[in-house]
C-alpha cells in the first residue's frame, strides 16, 4: 500500500518531483527521494500522474 520507489531504477528525469513536489524530491544526482509514502486527497491524483510519467517505472502506488 502507498508509494514505493526503486532508487536503482531511477534515471533522474525529475518528472515526479515536478508534478508532485509534496511527495517526491531528488538528491544531488537527481535520483528520487520519497517524502511521503501515504498521499491523501488531491495528492492521490498527483501520485498517479507521477507513476505514469516516470520513464523508468521506478514508482509504484496503490491507493
Amino acid at each position, binding site marked *: 500500500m502507498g508509494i514505493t520507489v526503486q532508487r536503482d531504477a531511477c534515471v*533522474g*528525469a525529475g*518528472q515526479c518531483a515536478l508534478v508532485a513536489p509534496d511527495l517526491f524530491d531528488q538528491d544531488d544526482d*537527481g535520483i528520487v527521494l520519497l517524502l511521503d509514502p501515504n498521499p491523501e486527497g488531491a495528492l492521490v491524483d498527483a501520485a498517479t500522474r507521477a507513476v*505514469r510519467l516516470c*520513464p*523508468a*517505472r521506478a514508482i509504484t502506488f496503490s491507493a
Partner: protein
Amino acid sequence: MSERVVVVGASIGGLTAAETLRQEGFDGDVILIGDERHRPYNRPPLSKQIIVGDWEPEDAHIRSEVEIGDLGIDLRTSCVAEALDAPARVLHTSQGDIPFDELIIATGTEPRRHPLVPSALTLRTVDDALAIRDGLRSARRVTVIGPGILGSEIASAARKYGADTHLVGRSGTLTFGGVGALLSSQLIELHETNGVDLDLDAEIVSADSDTAGTSILFADGRSERADLVVAMIGGDPRTGWLESSTLTIDNGIVCDGTGQAAAGVSAVGDVAAWRDPYTGRPVRVEHQSNAIEQAIAVALRLVRGEAGTRPVPLFWSELHGTRINAFGWFDPGLPLAPFDDGDAVLVSRDDAGRVHGAVGWNAPPREFRVARAAVAESASLAPLP
C-alpha cells in the same frame, strides 16, 4: 467504451498507452504488438548506459513479462504491422489480421542510413546498441557522423573506451535536441576538453570499407580511416506501412490536438504530428517524455473522453560526465541567458519576461526544478500575440 484496443509499437509510448488504459479500468482486450523480439525497453539508455557497458539489455526493460501479464496486456513480439484498413478497422500484420475498435499507432522513427557511408552503424534498437558496444570495445579509431545529441553521446562513449574519436558534422554547429544550436559553443568546448577531435564543416565525398575498417574521403581532399563509423543523422517516421491507408501522412501521421488521426485511429510519440493548439500546425516531437504524455492523453480520451494535452518537451544527456537537462521550447533567435545568479541554469526568456525553456548544465536538481516550474507556468498560458 470500445471493446478492443490494439496498440502498434511496443516501446515506451505504446506500453504507456496500454498500461494507462488498464489503470483507468478499461476491461476490454488490449493487444500490444511490436516488431522487435524484445519486450518493451527504454531507448534513452541505449546510447548512454548500454553502449558504455554499465547496463545490460535487461536493465533497460520497462516491465517484466509477469507485470505485463498481470495488467492483462496481450503482448505480441516479432509481429510486424503491414497495412491498415482504417474504415474497416482492421490491422494487417505478419501474424494475421487483427480487427479493432480503437487503434493507437506508436511506431516511432527509423534511423536514416548515411547514403555515402553504407557501412556506418546507426542506433535505434537494443540490438543496434549491442553492435556499437562490441565495436567500441575493440576500436582504436572511431568516427561519429552527426552533430546531434546521439552523435555527442556516442563520441562521449568512444572516449570512455579510450578511442581516438572524431566527431563530424557539416553545419558548423553541434545541436542538442529541441535546444537546437544554442548550446553549440558549450558542447564544442566540452568535447574538446575531453579529447574529441571535432570537424563540423566536413563534407563527405565517399567511403570505402573492407573487413578492417572504413576510409572516408572529404571534399577538401583529406581522407581518414576508422575501425568503427557510426552515423546518427536523424530519423524518419515509420509510416511506410500506412501508404495504402486513408491517413494523412506529412512528416509523420497528422493528428488533431488530441492525437486522433481518423475515426478509431490515434497516434503518439515520434511518429505522430499533433496539431499544436496555438499555431494550428502539426508538430512532431522526438523525445521520450512527449511519447509518454501523448500516450497518457490518448488513453484518458478513450476511457474518459478527456481532451488533449500539450506536453512540454523534456530531455537530458550525460556527456563526458556532465549532465545536461533541457525542458521547454527554444527559439533559435533568442540566446540563452542565466536564470538567476549562477550559470548552471540557462533559460530562453522572451521580452515579456516569460521563460519558455530551461537548460541545466550540471545543475543541482532542485535549482533546475525552479526553472522548470517557471517554464511550466508559461506553458499553461496562451502564447503572446
